[in-house]
């Protein structure tokens, strides 16, 4: 059982009324440990921001409860909540300097100017903003503005830090370095954080756990590795990384959950399958493109025919037809690996550890 520092219980948010009702958040349950960074990940409009805004107090849930540190804050107004938000567009006050922005919160809370400034210096050092205190936010680069926004939240020493796509306004390179920085900072300060993004790479690289949402419903909660290697459904598998789905039929199920399937007359055993299956059920075999190994054709193996080859420098991508289905295979370090011809029949090796089976879902 998770010791919850922040807990969302059966959270529902319905917008509008009558014909244009939108259920933005649908029975969301989530427990976040103290000091943990949890990412809300999902496509646009799946309700990430709405959840964050309910935690910060800007939206009232239609139903459900929110607890922070055992305390029910569901209806506490935003200015009385122990949360601090880093806005997507930073929301820096344009009529104040960087330092004034940062000490805004402490001063609102009645801390003396001097004490606030001293505290601000520490925080600015922490995020690497020394010497920029007297600038106007509009004269800062995107990355610096981001840091100001972080500093302004951190100085409040909130119980929960909320970040709504904090990096989406930065260019790609900066985004990568900033996310490492945010992660380090978060770990150093040990602050419980919820981080919203629709960039799966970002989510994977900085979270303790990832929450994957679709249409306001949680699809899976797990560590980055878990959701990548053992996705709970087709949506998650597809959303996180690239995935091949092969249709198969379950041949046999043992009592302790090992599942045997048949793929092109070859039996494959998936040990301890995550989901429960029944004999003769249809199922999906989930294969990550980089986990498939190609070899020169050998007898008594699963074989496929190469239909397309794309060379990308650091990797080689093959489209392979297996059992009338197209499968993508990625081989890194193409200079080292064996190379294959278009149209060639090849043997396919599937490492047992990388096999993941999902129950059949009708395609949408």
């Amino acid at each position, binding site marked *: 059982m998770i010791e919850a520092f922040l807990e969302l219980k059966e959270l529902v948010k319905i917008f509008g009324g009558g014909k244009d009702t939108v259920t933005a958040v649908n029975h969301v349950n989530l427990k976040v440990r103290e000091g943990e960074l949890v990412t809300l990940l999902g496509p646009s409009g799946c309700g990430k*921001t709405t959840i964050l805004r309910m935690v*910060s*107090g*800007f939206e*009232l849930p239609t139903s459900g409860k929110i607890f922070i540190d055992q305390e029910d804050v569901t209806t506490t*107004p*935003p*200015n*009385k909540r122990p*949360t*601090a*938000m880093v*806005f*997507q*567009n*930073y*929301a*820096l*006050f*344009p*009529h104040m300097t960087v330092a004034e922005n940062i000490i*805004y*919160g402490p001063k*609102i*809370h009645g801390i003396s100017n001097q004490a606030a400034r001293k505290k601000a210096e520490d925080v600015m050092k922490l995020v690497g903003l020394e010497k920029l205190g007297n600038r106007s*936010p*509009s004269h800062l680069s*995107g990355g610096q*503005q981001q840091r100001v926004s972080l500093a*302004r*939240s951190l100085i*409040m020493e909130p119980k929960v830090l909320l970040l*709504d796509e904090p990096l*989406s*306004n930065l260019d790609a390179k900066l985004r990568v370095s900033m996310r490492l920085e945010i992660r380090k900072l978060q770990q150093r300060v040990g602050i419980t954080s919820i981080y919203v993004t629709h960039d799966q790479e970002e989510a994977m690289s900085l979270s303790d756990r990832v929450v994957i949402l679709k249409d306001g419903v949680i699809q899976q909660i797990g560590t980055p590795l878990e959701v990548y290697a053992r996705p709970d459904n087709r949506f998650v598998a597809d959303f996180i990384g690239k995935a091949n789905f092969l249709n198969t039929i379950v041949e046999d199920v043992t009592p302790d959950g090992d599942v045997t399937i048949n793929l092109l007359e070859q039996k494959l055993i998936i040990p301890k399958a995550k989901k429960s299956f029944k004999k003769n059920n249809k199922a999906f075999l989930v294969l990550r493109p980089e986990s498939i190994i190609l070899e020169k054709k050998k007898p008594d193996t699963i074989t496929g025919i190469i239909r397309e080859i794309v060379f990308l420098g650091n990797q080689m991508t093959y489209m392979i037809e297996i059992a009338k289905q197209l499968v993508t295979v990625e081989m890194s370090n193409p200079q080292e690996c064996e190379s294959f011809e278009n149209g060639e029949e090849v043997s396919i090796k599937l490492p047992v550890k990388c096999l993941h089976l999902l129950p059949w879902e009708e395609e949408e």
Partner: protein
Amino acid sequence: MLFLDKEQQGLPYFLVVLRFMNNDRNRQIHEITGQLRLIWKEPILFLLILLIFYFLFTFVVFPIFQVVKNSVYIGGKWDFSNYVAIFSKRYFIQPFFNSIILGIYTATLGSIAGFIFAYALTRTSLPFKNFFRTTATFPIISPPFIVALAAILLFGRAGSFTPWVKSIIGNYSIYGLSGLVLVETIAYSPTAFLVLYGVLEAIDPSLEEASMDLGASWGKVFTTVTLPLATPGIASAWLLVFIQSMADFGNPMVISGNYRVLSVQAYLQITGMYDLPRGSTLAMLLLLPTITAFFLQKYWVSRKSYVTVTGKPTGATIKNLEWYIKLPIYSACIIYAGIVLLFYGTIVYGSFQTLWGVNPTLTLKNYVEMFEVGKDYLYHSVLLSSIATPVTGIVGIFISFLIIRKNFIGRGLMEFISMLTFAVPGTVVGIGYILAFNQKTVLMPVVLTGTAWIIIILLIFRDMPVGIRSGIAALQQIDPAIEEASTDLGADSNTTFRKITLPMIAPAFFSGLAFGFVKAMTAISAIIFVVSGRWNLITVAILGFVDNTQYARAAAMSIILIIIILVALGLIQLFVNRVGKGVRMTTIIE
């Protein structure tokens, strides 16, 4: 006046670099030859620019120049005695300060009312927002002095509320400063409202959320974020209402009593005393503060406004405000809307009364009589406004096109003169027109005074700000790249304008026209100087009825005027909705 298409400056890159390195003289020569080449290539455009300059000089600069000249060139010689006397003579100094004081009160109250409305509409979940928005802006589409007429009907000597008010505050008179402040606040707060609505709407709501998130209460959010960010906008609104109040003629004419203001005094000096020098000097006293306020607004205040720093806005949110915040805001809105409705309702009610305050029997006779007496006025107003408005629109859009998109010698001057039309009070323009056009001059070899032409021309150039603003708004709808693409495909600027630019800007253009028509139909302060027995307008007629205390008839005529305006607006709106997205009123007013 040579010109150069911006699009056609597309020299090869190395030439640009060369030009960059060359000294100024070389560049000038290059530009001049470039422009000469273009006169050759686009002679029509060149002629049009000349023509516009002629019009601007004759109908904008020349009349103002005449006012200046008449205040210092008296009886055939230079004479600065009027200016020397400004501080010693009561007939100068008193109206000057009176107008300023009136302006300050009106601007302050108008901005407060406008701000509360704008805040309620952008930041709260006030119900019936459309109703309140309409009420708050309604006075814009009626002649301003209708408010003064209503004030007389309500609070005047025979006013319906007079006994009641008297029982509370004792003896009072609606004629004077307080009455003026009341009616001008109602008449001009819509301007403040529209400006502030735009300002508050543009403040990124996530700033206020950030403030609240950091622990600020509503009051703190308001004083530390909302208000500071809105301050330049408030200053802007204040200055604009100040200008309108200073320049107002109709309301003071009706209700100022013994409180002398510049616009009315100037009018009386000129039309009553035929004292042109003194009238011109009063006009100058009116011109200076308004021009100052205008340039302050234009160059100082608008520079200080904060541009929100970053990208994707986080959709506007309506805060769950506490009842003790909502209550005063909502009450203020309801009370204010109630007052506006009361005033206009009184006009409607009054138009059906036999004799206001004496015989309240309902009757239609005012309308019948009004049609007998006033159908010519009505016809002339509609006719002349309908002629003037499209011309304003076309010239306005052409000027804005030249200013924004073209590069020619004299562009700065053209911009400046067009701006002058924004800032000069109607009274000054009216006086300028009678001084400038009651004789033949080099610029205008026929006498215009007494003709329909002088009215049409005055309406055109008084409305020019509307024309230019809507032109600018319209041009902003299109990406220059599209025009460049067309030019690139071989079209000259003429064809580009007709085939590409025009269709894209039509909706904005027509909603601009709608507002231009309203302004033409409700114009009074300048028009009153140029109307004649043969050509008179409905606003002047209404003012005449009010002057003769024929209030019921004046009310009936006002109602007809408002109905005509509403019908015209409705028709244009229908049309605009068909062709696409119009422009917001704010872009045109500010």
